[in-house]
């Protein structure tokens, strides 16, 4: 009767391989939590006013250099 232990391990491993990572994990049947308190902060994690006029970052400085060097060649 020592035999059945082995296939169980391979079965588990196979299941993991085929696991759909986007599948929502089951909550325990009696799992409860306070969803009123924590949730509010989730709304404050985003910004829609990021599109500023700042062109002093590295990327913009390199872009400027590139455009100016090309302009002088023309």
């Amino acid at each position, binding site marked *: 009767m020592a035999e059945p232990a082995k296939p169980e391990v391979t079965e588990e491993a196979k299941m993991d391989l085929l696991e759909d990572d986007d*599948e929502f*994990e089951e909550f325990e049947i009696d799992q409860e*939590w306070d969803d009123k308190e924590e949730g509010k902060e989730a709304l404050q994690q985003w910004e829609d006013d990021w599109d500023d006029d700042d062109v002093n970052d590295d*990327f913009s400085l390199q872009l400027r250099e590139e455009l100016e060097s090309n302009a002088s060649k023309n």
Partner: protein
Amino acid sequence: MAAYLSMGEAHRRIGDYLSRVVDAISSSDGAALASLIAVSSAPGSTSLSDALATFPDFPRLAGDRIPHLADLLVPLLRAIHSHSLQRFADAYSSFEKAASAFLQEFRSWETPWAMEAMHTVAFEIRLLAEKADRELATTGKNPDKLQAAGSFLMKVFGALAVKGPKRIGALYVTCQLFKIYFRLGTVNLCRSVIRSIETARNFDFEDFPVKDKVTYMYYTGRLEVFNENFLVADQKLTYALMHCNPQSESNLRRILKFLIPVKLSIGVLPKRTLLETYNLLEFDKHVCVVLSGAIVTHLGRYTMLLIEICARGNMTFQYADVVTSLKRGDLRLLRQALDRHEDQFLKSGVYLVLEKLELQVYQRLVKKIHIIQRQKEPAKAHQIKLDVVVKALKWLEIDMDLDEVECIMACLIYKNLIKGYFAHKSKVLVLSKQDPFPKLNGKPV
């Protein structure tokens, strides 16, 4: 590994199990019944399985002892027995028979006392069907059990989605159905259950248990992503994020995996503080530990949790470059990020969403060119020569000729990402003096 079991002992154990099921039903103990019929995880199922192996005549024992529940108990014992022998296709077929008999009993009970057991049946049948299909596929047979489990769960849904106290259990079954349909790639089948849930006049959605509401919003949010309804997807996934158990990191991570691209597509970015912190987490865990103490006072517990989750799930890796490309107007970076994670993005169904960000990145690049020109020569800043755009793109290793760039500018104007007109002869884009780069402000492109 089972020790030797006498026939008498096996007989006693099976009899004991049968009377526990009968007791649970007669005393309306839903939790006890649920644990007894959980084939894959029933407590003490090993000792029961050993008894079933020792006493092969168990179907007759069950039929003789408890004839009025034989339709339920005989196939249930067979399912437990086959499952313990890892014959999953057989276990599935028996369990489906037991489940049908159980559903019939459940319909006849007026109160929803057995809801937990009904949910256990719904969960178990899905799990068993998945195991059975894997077994069938490896032996070259047609894996059709998960589909069959879906048909059975539609019957369960029908028994629950009615007026009255049983309706509260309908959303759980809906979520099991979603898991099956997403797994099988038949997501269009979700539509009829969604309609039934959302059009009910006599039951308020908010009255369902929170765990089922969160799961439901995650899946319906993903469906809206597939259908490119980004505003509705945003509402549903945000609901899921707000109400999800803060302890359930893997589920929060799954929600963010879809919510971040949706937010990006309507011009909303994850906060800079959040992003900078994930980058630090990515580069150096020690810096993170030092910083997290300082940051936690500003950001609060929930934010820290989200940061941790994103970092652990490698979300940084997947999305940080995409976000940076939007901020910079860096098309090369966007393309690199899409290439690097192509398989994963395609598999999750977010690739097309992210690919569409390209127009926003073009808008940002043209805006940067405009600002740089304005600083140098304010009078001519609203005229952008197309060959300047071609040069900027070449610098980003993107080879495009004037015609192609013209086509993209026309598209930006058409989509209202740029206000202005195009002077075709002189190859110049003339920007409107007022708000030449309208913001999306939470609207899709």
